Protein backbone atom coordinates (compact mmCIF):
# COMPACT_ATOMS: atom_id res chain seq x y z
CA UNK A 1 0.00 0.00 0.00
CA UNK A 2 1.35 3.39 -0.89
CA UNK A 3 1.12 6.26 1.58
CA UNK A 4 -1.29 9.07 0.79
CA UNK A 5 -1.06 12.75 1.53
CA UNK A 6 -2.46 16.00 0.16
CA UNK A 7 -1.13 19.54 0.41
CA UNK A 8 -3.24 22.48 -0.69
CA UNK A 9 -1.78 25.68 -2.03
CA UNK A 10 -3.05 28.78 -3.79
CA UNK A 11 -1.01 31.28 -5.72
CA UNK A 12 -1.67 34.19 -8.06
CA UNK A 13 0.45 35.72 -10.78
CA UNK A 14 -0.26 39.09 -12.42
CA UNK A 15 1.03 40.36 -15.73
CA UNK A 16 0.29 43.48 -17.76
CA UNK A 17 0.56 43.02 -21.52
CA UNK A 18 0.63 45.88 -24.05
CA UNK A 19 -2.21 44.28 -26.05
CA UNK A 20 -6.02 44.58 -25.87
CA UNK A 21 -7.94 42.02 -23.77
CA UNK A 22 -9.49 40.46 -26.89
CA UNK A 23 -6.03 39.65 -28.26
CA UNK A 24 -4.70 38.26 -24.98
CA UNK A 25 -7.88 36.20 -24.63
CA UNK A 26 -7.40 34.84 -28.14
CA UNK A 27 -3.93 33.62 -27.18
CA UNK A 28 -5.70 31.41 -24.62
CA UNK A 29 -8.73 30.37 -26.67
CA UNK A 30 -7.23 29.65 -30.08
CA UNK A 31 -5.26 26.38 -30.25
CA UNK A 32 -2.56 27.42 -32.78
CA UNK A 33 -1.95 30.63 -30.76
CA UNK A 34 -1.84 28.82 -27.42
CA UNK A 35 0.55 26.18 -28.76
CA UNK A 36 3.04 28.99 -29.49
CA UNK A 37 3.56 29.87 -25.82
CA UNK A 38 2.01 27.19 -23.59
CA UNK A 39 4.81 24.58 -23.69
CA UNK A 40 7.49 26.03 -21.44
CA UNK A 41 10.66 24.27 -22.47
CA UNK A 42 12.37 24.41 -25.85
CA UNK A 43 14.27 21.15 -25.25
CA UNK A 44 11.12 19.19 -24.29
CA UNK A 45 9.34 17.12 -26.89
CA UNK A 46 5.70 18.15 -27.09
CA UNK A 47 3.06 15.55 -27.90
CA UNK A 48 -0.20 16.26 -29.70
CA UNK A 49 -2.00 19.33 -28.34
CA UNK A 50 -5.75 18.67 -28.23
CA UNK A 51 -7.96 21.60 -27.35
CA UNK A 52 -11.74 21.89 -27.39
CA UNK A 53 -12.34 25.41 -26.11
CA UNK A 54 -15.90 25.43 -24.80
CA UNK A 55 -17.51 24.78 -21.42
CA UNK A 56 -17.16 21.05 -20.81
CA UNK A 57 -14.47 20.76 -23.51
CA UNK A 58 -11.08 19.14 -22.84
CA UNK A 59 -7.51 20.19 -23.40
CA UNK A 60 -4.66 17.70 -23.36
CA UNK A 61 -0.95 18.07 -23.82
CA UNK A 62 1.89 15.71 -23.01
CA UNK A 63 5.43 17.07 -22.81
CA UNK A 64 8.53 14.92 -22.44
CA UNK A 65 11.80 16.38 -21.14
CA UNK A 66 15.18 14.95 -22.19
CA UNK A 67 15.13 12.60 -19.13
CA UNK A 68 12.07 10.86 -20.60
CA UNK A 69 9.48 11.28 -17.82
CA UNK A 70 6.31 12.42 -19.59
CA UNK A 71 4.43 15.37 -17.99
CA UNK A 72 0.78 15.08 -18.93
CA UNK A 73 -1.61 18.05 -18.65
CA UNK A 74 -5.34 17.27 -18.82
CA UNK A 75 -7.91 20.04 -18.43
CA UNK A 76 -11.66 20.54 -18.61
CA UNK A 77 -13.10 24.01 -19.20
CA UNK A 78 -15.65 25.04 -16.55
CA UNK A 79 -16.40 28.68 -17.26
CA UNK A 80 -15.72 30.91 -20.27
CA UNK A 81 -16.60 34.62 -20.55
CA UNK A 82 -15.09 35.83 -23.85
CA UNK A 83 -12.46 38.52 -23.30
CA UNK A 84 -12.90 38.41 -19.52
CA UNK A 85 -12.49 35.06 -17.78
CA UNK A 86 -11.56 31.40 -18.20
CA UNK A 87 -11.85 28.79 -15.45
CA UNK A 88 -10.67 25.23 -15.92
CA UNK A 89 -9.88 22.23 -13.77
CA UNK A 90 -6.73 20.31 -14.59
CA UNK A 91 -4.51 17.55 -13.36
CA UNK A 92 -0.84 16.79 -13.96
CA UNK A 93 0.63 13.32 -14.34
CA UNK A 94 4.30 12.34 -14.20
CA UNK A 95 4.18 9.19 -16.32
CA UNK A 96 1.24 7.35 -14.73
CA UNK A 97 1.39 9.13 -11.38
CA UNK A 98 -1.09 11.94 -10.75
CA UNK A 99 0.86 14.62 -8.89
CA UNK A 100 -1.70 17.41 -8.65
CA UNK A 101 -5.29 18.40 -9.27
CA UNK A 102 -6.00 22.11 -9.66
CA UNK A 103 -8.54 24.78 -10.41
CA UNK A 104 -7.12 27.56 -12.58
CA UNK A 105 -8.78 30.95 -13.06
CA UNK A 106 -7.57 33.42 -15.69
CA UNK A 107 -8.98 36.95 -15.55
CA UNK A 108 -8.46 39.61 -18.21
CA UNK A 109 -9.14 43.31 -17.52
CA UNK A 110 -8.42 46.36 -19.66
CA UNK A 111 -5.59 48.48 -18.29
CA UNK A 112 -5.11 51.59 -20.45
CA UNK A 113 -4.42 50.24 -23.94
CA UNK A 114 -3.22 46.95 -22.49
CA UNK A 115 -4.48 44.05 -20.43
CA UNK A 116 -4.00 43.05 -16.83
CA UNK A 117 -3.98 39.27 -16.61
CA UNK A 118 -4.40 37.54 -13.26
CA UNK A 119 -3.74 33.81 -13.14
CA UNK A 120 -4.81 32.06 -9.93
CA UNK A 121 -4.21 28.40 -9.23
CA UNK A 122 -5.74 26.47 -6.34
CA UNK A 123 -3.91 23.19 -6.21
CA UNK A 124 -3.93 19.92 -4.32
CA UNK A 125 -0.43 18.39 -4.50
CA UNK A 126 -0.63 14.64 -4.08
CA UNK A 127 1.32 11.86 -2.41
CA UNK A 128 4.68 13.39 -1.70
CA UNK A 129 5.28 14.82 -5.14
CA UNK A 130 9.02 15.37 -5.04
CA UNK A 131 10.58 18.57 -6.18
CA UNK A 132 12.91 17.30 -8.89
CA UNK A 133 10.63 18.73 -11.54
CA UNK A 134 10.24 21.90 -9.50
CA UNK A 135 13.97 22.56 -9.61
CA UNK A 136 13.97 22.16 -13.39
CA UNK A 137 11.06 24.55 -13.66
CA UNK A 138 12.84 27.14 -11.55
CA UNK A 139 15.86 27.08 -13.85
CA UNK A 140 13.48 27.49 -16.78
CA UNK A 141 11.83 30.48 -15.14
CA UNK A 142 15.08 32.34 -14.76
CA UNK A 143 15.66 32.00 -18.50
CA UNK A 144 12.08 33.13 -19.11
CA UNK A 145 12.49 36.24 -16.97
CA UNK A 146 15.70 37.08 -18.82
CA UNK A 147 13.82 36.87 -22.14
CA UNK A 148 11.11 39.14 -20.78
CA UNK A 149 13.70 41.65 -19.62
CA UNK A 150 15.34 41.63 -23.04
CA UNK A 151 11.99 42.21 -24.71
CA UNK A 152 11.25 45.46 -22.88
CA UNK A 153 14.87 46.70 -22.73
Amino acid at each position, binding site marked *: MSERNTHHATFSIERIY*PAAPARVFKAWSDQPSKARWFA*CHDDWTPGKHEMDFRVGGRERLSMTPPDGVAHRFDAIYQDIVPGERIIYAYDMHLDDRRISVSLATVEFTAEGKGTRLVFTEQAAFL*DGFDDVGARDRKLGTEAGLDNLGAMFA
Partner: protein
Amino acid sequence: MPEFCEILKLMLNYSRSAKTAGKTPSGPLLDLVFQALADPARRGMVERLASGPASVSELAQPLAMSLPAVMQHLQVLEASGLVRSEKIGRVRTCRVEKTALRMVENWVAGRRANWEKRLDRLGEFLAEEDEQTEEQPKKRRSKP
Protein backbone atom coordinates in the same frame (compact mmCIF):
# COMPACT_ATOMS: atom_id res chain seq x y z
CA MET B 1 14.39 40.50 2.53
CA PRO B 2 11.22 40.74 0.41
CA GLU B 3 11.96 37.42 -1.28
CA PHE B 4 12.05 35.63 2.04
CA CYS B 5 8.78 37.26 3.13
CA GLU B 6 7.15 36.06 -0.06
CA ILE B 7 8.36 32.52 0.63
CA LEU B 8 7.10 32.72 4.18
CA LYS B 9 3.72 33.99 3.02
CA LEU B 10 3.41 31.09 0.59
CA MET B 11 4.40 28.66 3.28
CA LEU B 12 1.93 30.09 5.76
CA ASN B 13 -0.92 29.90 3.26
CA TYR B 14 0.24 26.44 2.48
CA SER B 15 0.52 25.30 6.08
CA ARG B 16 -2.95 26.60 6.93
CA SER B 17 -4.55 24.33 4.40
CA ALA B 18 -2.12 21.42 4.67
CA LYS B 19 -3.66 18.09 5.48
CA THR B 20 -1.09 15.53 6.35
CA ALA B 21 -1.57 11.82 6.58
CA GLY B 22 1.38 10.10 4.96
CA LYS B 23 4.98 9.16 5.47
CA THR B 24 6.48 9.34 2.02
CA PRO B 25 10.22 10.02 1.86
CA SER B 26 9.68 13.77 1.84
CA GLY B 27 6.50 13.57 3.95
CA PRO B 28 7.45 13.39 7.64
CA LEU B 29 9.73 16.42 7.68
CA LEU B 30 7.23 18.43 5.67
CA ASP B 31 4.51 17.44 8.12
CA LEU B 32 6.65 18.69 11.01
CA VAL B 33 7.27 21.96 9.17
CA PHE B 34 3.56 22.51 8.67
CA GLN B 35 2.80 21.65 12.29
CA ALA B 36 5.51 24.04 13.41
CA LEU B 37 4.04 26.87 11.32
CA ALA B 38 0.45 26.18 12.33
CA ASP B 39 0.98 28.14 15.57
CA PRO B 40 0.95 31.97 15.43
CA ALA B 41 3.57 32.35 18.19
CA ARG B 42 5.96 30.07 16.30
CA ARG B 43 5.28 31.88 13.03
CA GLY B 44 6.15 35.11 14.83
CA MET B 45 9.41 33.57 16.04
CA VAL B 46 10.31 32.43 12.50
CA GLU B 47 9.50 35.88 11.13
CA ARG B 48 11.67 37.47 13.81
CA LEU B 49 14.53 35.09 13.00
CA ALA B 50 14.14 35.83 9.29
CA SER B 51 15.65 39.25 9.97
CA GLY B 52 18.65 37.71 11.74
CA PRO B 53 19.77 35.40 14.58
CA ALA B 54 18.45 36.11 18.09
CA SER B 55 18.93 34.80 21.62
CA VAL B 56 16.10 32.96 23.36
CA SER B 57 15.46 35.92 25.65
CA GLU B 58 15.33 38.26 22.65
CA LEU B 59 12.78 35.93 21.07
CA ALA B 60 10.76 35.81 24.30
CA GLN B 61 10.77 39.57 24.87
CA PRO B 62 7.90 40.62 22.53
CA LEU B 63 5.84 37.51 23.39
CA ALA B 64 3.50 37.46 26.37
CA MET B 65 4.72 34.08 27.58
CA SER B 66 7.16 32.51 29.98
CA LEU B 67 10.69 31.52 29.02
CA PRO B 68 9.88 27.77 29.39
CA ALA B 69 6.91 28.20 27.01
CA VAL B 70 9.19 29.88 24.49
CA MET B 71 11.67 27.01 24.89
CA GLN B 72 8.88 24.53 24.11
CA HIS B 73 7.95 26.36 20.92
CA LEU B 74 11.61 26.47 20.03
CA GLN B 75 11.84 22.69 20.42
CA VAL B 76 8.97 22.23 17.93
CA LEU B 77 10.69 24.58 15.47
CA GLU B 78 13.99 22.74 15.87
CA ALA B 79 12.35 19.34 15.39
CA SER B 80 10.91 20.56 12.09
CA GLY B 81 14.35 21.64 10.93
CA LEU B 82 13.14 25.21 10.40
CA VAL B 83 15.29 26.64 13.19
CA ARG B 84 18.69 25.72 14.62
CA SER B 85 20.08 26.90 17.93
CA GLU B 86 23.45 26.65 19.65
CA LYS B 87 24.51 27.51 23.14
CA ILE B 88 27.63 29.57 23.43
CA GLY B 89 28.52 30.33 27.04
CA ARG B 90 25.22 31.12 28.74
CA VAL B 91 23.43 32.40 25.65
CA ARG B 92 21.43 30.17 23.29
CA THR B 93 21.36 31.76 19.81
CA CYS B 94 18.68 30.75 17.30
CA ARG B 95 18.75 31.10 13.54
CA VAL B 96 16.59 30.12 10.60
CA GLU B 97 17.65 26.98 8.76
CA LYS B 98 17.28 27.86 5.10
CA THR B 99 17.27 24.31 3.67
CA ALA B 100 14.00 23.33 5.33
CA LEU B 101 12.41 26.56 4.15
CA ARG B 102 13.60 25.89 0.65
CA MET B 103 12.15 22.37 0.60
CA VAL B 104 8.64 23.57 1.40
CA GLU B 105 8.96 26.55 -0.87
CA ASN B 106 9.86 24.27 -3.79
CA TRP B 107 6.51 22.55 -3.73
CA VAL B 108 4.56 25.69 -4.44
CA ALA B 109 7.26 27.78 -6.08
CA GLY B 110 7.92 25.09 -8.67
CA ARG B 111 4.38 25.23 -9.94
CA ARG B 112 4.31 28.99 -9.71
CA ALA B 113 7.60 29.30 -11.57
CA ASN B 114 6.27 27.12 -14.35
CA TRP B 115 3.35 29.51 -14.82
CA GLU B 116 5.53 32.60 -14.63
CA LYS B 117 7.59 31.24 -17.48
CA ARG B 118 4.46 30.45 -19.50
CA LEU B 119 3.02 33.92 -18.98
CA ASP B 120 6.34 35.48 -20.00
CA ARG B 121 6.23 33.43 -23.18
CA LEU B 122 2.70 34.65 -23.78
CA GLY B 123 4.10 38.20 -23.59
CA GLU B 124 6.76 37.33 -26.15
CA PHE B 125 4.16 35.76 -28.41
CA LEU B 126 1.98 38.90 -28.26
CA ALA B 127 5.01 41.09 -29.02
CA GLU B 128 5.86 38.96 -32.07
CA GLU B 129 2.29 39.30 -33.31
CA ASP B 130 2.62 43.09 -32.87
CA GLU B 131 5.74 43.20 -35.02
CA GLN B 132 3.99 41.26 -37.76
CA THR B 133 0.94 43.54 -37.82
CA GLU B 134 3.14 46.65 -37.78
CA GLU B 135 5.04 45.47 -40.82
CA GLN B 136 1.93 44.84 -42.84
CA PRO B 137 0.53 48.40 -43.21
CA LYS B 138 3.98 49.70 -44.28
CA LYS B 139 3.93 47.30 -47.18
CA ARG B 140 0.31 48.32 -47.84
CA ARG B 141 -0.70 44.72 -47.91
CA SER B 142 -4.39 43.96 -47.98
CA LYS B 143 -5.78 41.60 -45.38
CA PRO B 144 -5.41 37.95 -46.32
